[in-house]
């Protein structure tokens, strides 16, 4: 039985990446994810890997692109303002069909905002962020354990579908220390020799590019192929978690740290005899619309709780339509949602 150890969230992401076989990490300092860069700077030399502190977020995502094209697992991490800068590179990764893992430990925004945890980048992560018709797989961990587990998963998903997988955590998760059982390597092997750019020994020269100027080159076809990939991801990779939903009259919907707080609210409500439950999307894209409909479609009330002004709530409304009353409770400015307030709201539906 593997031993549980105490680990900080940001460090757990770093170790999980190494477990997943990621030996190339490029990043630029920004709070609240700095421990991850420090961890990789110390850890990667042990495995013969490369840690490089880039001159900017823009440079670091492009270094990831170069490494990924060479056929290895590569990762970068940042927090909200830095993730904005990476959007250009993320769009190019999508256009080039290159896998990569990007970690966003969200902080308060817009602008420089503040350095505490927040969930204000949901739209940016799930609806695009960069230019063009593309998607990222977005994974939302709600504990240090899940940060580690989902990081390992993110590399397999990125390689399976040749696309960007994003870990959408937040500053609180990155900074908190919890006991964690480090995941085992999944052992999945991905043969990248049919497309990686390594020099043309023994074959025709080839290139990776997102530019498709002439109709014969077919930008339309390339983008439609991407959509086919996204359909496959949607059919196969949706993940979510439920807590006391079987008999729930009121279902809370929350992701990440907000879901953690909602769990405490569910416990408090149950102790008071209120049948509350929690639905927690783990993949934010693809969003678990069908599972949510099955879980909460017939409940009396749904309350969406987010650490933002109301972003995921739009996907919840789209999934449930107007059959179920949907309320929203959120806090902005990197303030934490409060158990008491959630309890109060739910009780008001009685």
């Amino acid at each position, binding site marked *: 039985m593997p031993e549980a150890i105490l680990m900080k969230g940001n460090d757990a992401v770093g170790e999980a990446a190494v477990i997943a076989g990621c030996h190339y990490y490029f990043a630029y300092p920004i709070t609240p994810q700095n421990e991850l860069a420090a961890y990789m700077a110390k850890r990667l030399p042990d495995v013969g890997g490369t840690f490089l502190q880039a001159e900017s977020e823009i440079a670091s995502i492009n270094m990831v692109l170069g490494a990924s094209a060479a056929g290895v697992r590569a990762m970068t991490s940042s927090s909200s303002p830095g993730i904005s800068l990476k959007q*250009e590179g993320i769009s190019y990764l999508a256009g080039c069909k290159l896998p990569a893992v990007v970690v966003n430990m969200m902080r308060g925004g817009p602008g420089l905002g503040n350095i505490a945890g927040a969930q204000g980048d949901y739209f940016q992560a799930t609806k695009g962020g960069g230019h063009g018709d593309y998607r990222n797989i977005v994974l939302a961990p709600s504990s240090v354990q899940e940060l580690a587990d989902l990081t390992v998963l993110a590399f397999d998903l990125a390689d399976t579908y040749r696309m960007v997988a994003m870990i959408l955590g937040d500053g609180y998760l990155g900074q908190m220390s919890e006991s964690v059982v480090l995941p085992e390597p999944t052992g999945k092997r991905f043969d990248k020799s049919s497309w990686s750019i390594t020099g043309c020994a023994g074959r025709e020269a080839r290139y990776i590019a997102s530019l498709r100027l002439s109709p014969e080159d077919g930008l339309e076809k390339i983008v439609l192929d991407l959509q086919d990939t996204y359909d496959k991801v949607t059919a196969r990779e949706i993940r979510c978690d439920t807590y006391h939903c079987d008999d729930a009259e009121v279902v809370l919907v929350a992701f990440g740290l907000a879901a953690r707080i909602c769990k405490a609210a569910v416990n408090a409500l149950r102790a008071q005899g209120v049948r509350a439950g929690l639905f927690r999307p783990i993949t934010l894209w693809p969003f678990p619309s069908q599972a949510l409909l099955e879980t909460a479609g017939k409940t009396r009330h749904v309350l969406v709780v987010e650490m933002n002004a109301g972003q995921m709530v739009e996907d919840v409304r789209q999934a449930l339509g107007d059959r179920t009353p949907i309320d929203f409770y959120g806090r902005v400015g990197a303030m934490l949602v409060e158990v008491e307030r959630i309890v109060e709201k739910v009780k008001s539906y009685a």
Partner: protein
Amino acid sequence: MKLVYDRTLGLKDVPTHYCPGCGHGIIHKLLGQVIEELGIRERTIVVAPVGCSVLIYNYINTDGLESAHGRAPAVATGLKRVLKDRIVISYQGDGDLMAIGTAETIHAANRGEHISVLFVNNAIYGMTGGQMAPTTLAGQKTKTSPFGRDPAEAGFPIRACEMLATLEAPVFIERCAVDTVRNTLRAKKAIRKAIQNQVDGKGYSFVEFLSMCPTNWGMSPRKAAEWVGETMAAYYPLGNFRDR
């Protein structure tokens, strides 16, 4: 009959999209020849910029990787850090290298990345139709400096070689031109040196080419070549700035 000249194996046999008198075709050929002569075709990767030469992977007969505008040195860094025994070449124009990609250029050079950067300076944005570049000369008319570049408003043209020569890490920095046969042969030697340095594991090399853009300069090819020699070279002196 004796074959005295043939297309280099470093180039693909395809028609060019470059304008008559453009310097890119000359520099592509020099690069292709050096790649063949050094016997590195199967282990070379050319990183394409954004600009007229974005399609360089259609011409150079090696593996290629496209980058976003200005990011080629960062992409090349990622490639080379993984593929340490491959030859990675970053081919960039003046807008790409000295405007939008200034940070990536300086920091890749400063880290001494083991790459070779080929910088084509034609003092104008070609692909977008002739806008002012960071290297557009004072007084030079472009679409976005219709009365001539005014240094009081738009700053002075940037001398990339001189700027990079302030850094410790680069092992080779040279400015060449492709306006005359003599200069073109010298440019080929510089490319050869820049790539040989990488083969030898020496570090970062940078070669700038003063090059013609007859279409956007509104000149004949012949006049454009003369302008490189007489006007551009007066502001951008040819020569070596570093050779270790």
